[in-house]
């Protein structure tokens, strides 16, 4: 049975998630202990800032043992974690694994990082030798399903973070960003993030520096652009297409008059002003200048929320794709199960036995009841003795999680 035990951003506060995190360098060791102490045949640990989850495959349900292990490993009282932990088994666990990989269970719906984190977690488990055929199959199927959901729906399409929204808006105004001039006023972290993406799209960056010109020069170097003194604002503004302003200044840095002067020199080309500073850097009236698009932090967040609504609409389509993939995975798993195989094997043997008895009867003519019974007993005994060994061993192998043998046996017996 496949099981998932863990916490995520919905069930546990950050403090709990932090406490339960498994550091990368101790993952192999943790997996080793986990398997020794819980009876899991296969195990994988997914530990990100939004979730800590143990994926496992066991012969018998042992979610409680896994939960106890998580508490013990992090030296917590099991009762303390009880309200945060979820335990999923069988189909529910499989569904969860698929949804996590496809970013449908993420805090930011459709965010792209989780798929990479899932891949890394499986790889770490593989290196630690705790990945068997079942979890490996789960890995392949859930990752390919996640890719399908991403490419066939718009779940990850519209930006929901500040820097991505800024880049996307710039694209809605300028189309491609190649050779567009980006002007950074102030060298903040968020400005850098947005500028970096624009530069990746082919834009050229200029960084305006104030008192700490060195900082501006460093950032300009990192962006492959140039730095300019703050006094050159009007001059640079006239040359820019996109302005990202994020200074820590207490007052207005870019006045309406600056923007007007720049627009006059630009001959009506659009100018995109992104003001991510709090308090704001750009005078609100600058938005009224022709050809100017001014977005402050709140505006960008509004767009992000609208995009989030779009994503939620797309989530339904993504769930439908996953449903289909999950069903296929479960069907495939079921086909590998041992019990139906044993039933089929016995049925097939019995059919052969009956057919052969019929043939023999035709040759032998009428038999006495004693002879009938003897024939029946002899053939049944042969079948039972022949199948006894395979039956016992198959059950054992299934318990050890070696379902690939089931396929082999099906092939051998033509089932």
């Amino acid at each position, binding site marked *: 049975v496949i099981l998932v035990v863990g916490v995520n951003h919905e069930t546990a506060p950050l403090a709990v998630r932090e406490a339960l995190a498994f550091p990368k360098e101790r993952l192999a060791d943790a997996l080793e202990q986990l398997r020794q102490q819980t009876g899991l045949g296969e195990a994988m640990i997914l530990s990100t800032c939004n979730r800590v989850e143990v994926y496992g495959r066991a012969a018998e349900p042992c979610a409680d043992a896994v939960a106890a292990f998580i508490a013990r490993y992090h030296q917590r009282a099991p009762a303390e974690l009880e309200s945060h932990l979820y335990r999923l088994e069988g189909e529910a666990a499989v569904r969860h694994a698929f949804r996590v990989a496809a970013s449908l269970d993420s805090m930011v719906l459709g965010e792209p990082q989780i798929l990479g984190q899932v891949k890394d977690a499986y790889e770490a488990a593989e290196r630690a030798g705790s990945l068997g055929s079942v979890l490996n199959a789960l890995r392949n199927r859930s990752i390919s399903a996640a890719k399908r959901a991403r490419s066939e729906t718009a779940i990850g399409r*519209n930006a929901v973070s500040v820097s991505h929204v800024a880049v996307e*808006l710039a*694209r*809605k*105004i*300028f*189309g*491609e960003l190649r050779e567009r001039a980006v002007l950074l006023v102030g060298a903040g972290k968020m400005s850098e993030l947005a500028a970096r993406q624009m530069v990746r799209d082919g834009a050229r960056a200029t960084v305006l520096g104030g008192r700490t010109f060195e900082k501006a020069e460093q950032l300009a170097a990192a962006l492959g652009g140039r730095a300019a003194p703050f006094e050159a604002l009007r001059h640079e503004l006239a040359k820019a297409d996109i302005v990202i302003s994020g200074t820590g200044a207490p007052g207005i840095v870019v006045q309406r008059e600056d923007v007007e002067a720049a627009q006059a020199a630009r*001959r*009506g*080309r*659009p100018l995109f002003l992104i003001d991510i500073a709090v308090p704001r850097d750009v005078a609100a009236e600058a*938005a009224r200048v*022709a*050809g100017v*698009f001014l*977005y402050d932090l709140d*505006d960008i967040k*509004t*767009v992000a929320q*609208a995009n989030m609504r*779009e994503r939620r609409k797309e989530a339904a389509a993504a769930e439908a794709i996953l449903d289909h993939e999950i069903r296929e995975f479960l069907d495939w798993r079921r086909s590998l199960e041992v019990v139906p195989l044993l039933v089929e094997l016995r049925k097939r043997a019995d059919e052969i036995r009956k057919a052969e008895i019929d043939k023999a009867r035709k040759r032998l003519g009428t038999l006495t009841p004693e002879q009938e019974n003897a024939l029946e007993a002899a053939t049944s005994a042969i079948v039972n003795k022949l199948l006894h060994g395979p039956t016992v061993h198959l059950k054992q192998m299934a318990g050890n999680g070696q379902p690939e043998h089931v396929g082999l046996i099906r092939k051998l017996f033509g089932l």
Partner: protein
Amino acid sequence: MDSRAWLLITLLFYAVGALHALLFAVLRRSVLTTVSLTATLLGFACHTSALALRWNEGGHFPALGLHDGATLLSWAIILVFLLVYVTTRVDAAGLFAYPFSFAVVFVANLTPVTDRVDPVLRSLYLPLHVFLAVFGYGALFAAFSMGVLYLFQEQELRSRSPRRFYYLIPSLERSDTIGWRSVLGGFGFLTLAIVTGFLWNHSLHGRYWTGDPKEWAALAAWVIYVVILVARWRGRWGGRRAAWLAIVGFAVVVFTFAWATLVPGVAVAAR
């Protein structure tokens, strides 16, 4: 089947595109994108055969009266729309081309065919002049559509809280570029149409300029486009102003066209 039957089938196909545009405006969703493109392509094929048959039936190039005028104009508009789509993959211009062509083909279906036996109609100038003119109109209609899309998208972006249209219509830069190219193409065809018109006048009347109101109207439209072009070349009027001018320019063109086809006796060649 005769040309009128083909034109009726054309109308049915174009109805799909018109429905698409209607749903888009009401639901703000792109529901029938692929279906409407396919239907329009099939409709255009029927439209072309209607035109060819009518040419054959009439015995002269079919450019007489409202029926022919409407058929030709909508044909050119769809042709240019398809060209824009094939080269840029932007289908948003269809939001205007679909319903407009549907309406115009609808009118063509309702109006009777005008026929006359006149040696003037056998002139090679007729198809040449008319084809150049309708190609020009088609391109200018595309410029008009892109202008409206530009203003829509600009409105969305300036509102800072974009609604659905934001996702569905092209970027400002794209609308601007396609609109500009359409103006260039349209202006080229319009110029050639005016030149052939003058040459035709000369061959008929011995004069290039006859003082016909249509000549004045065509000249007015041409001057407006010259202004747009010069302003743009001098780097003054990009974006928003160009979008508005493309809309105004097209309005003037519509006026000329309506005058030429609707007011009896203005159709120069046939007088």
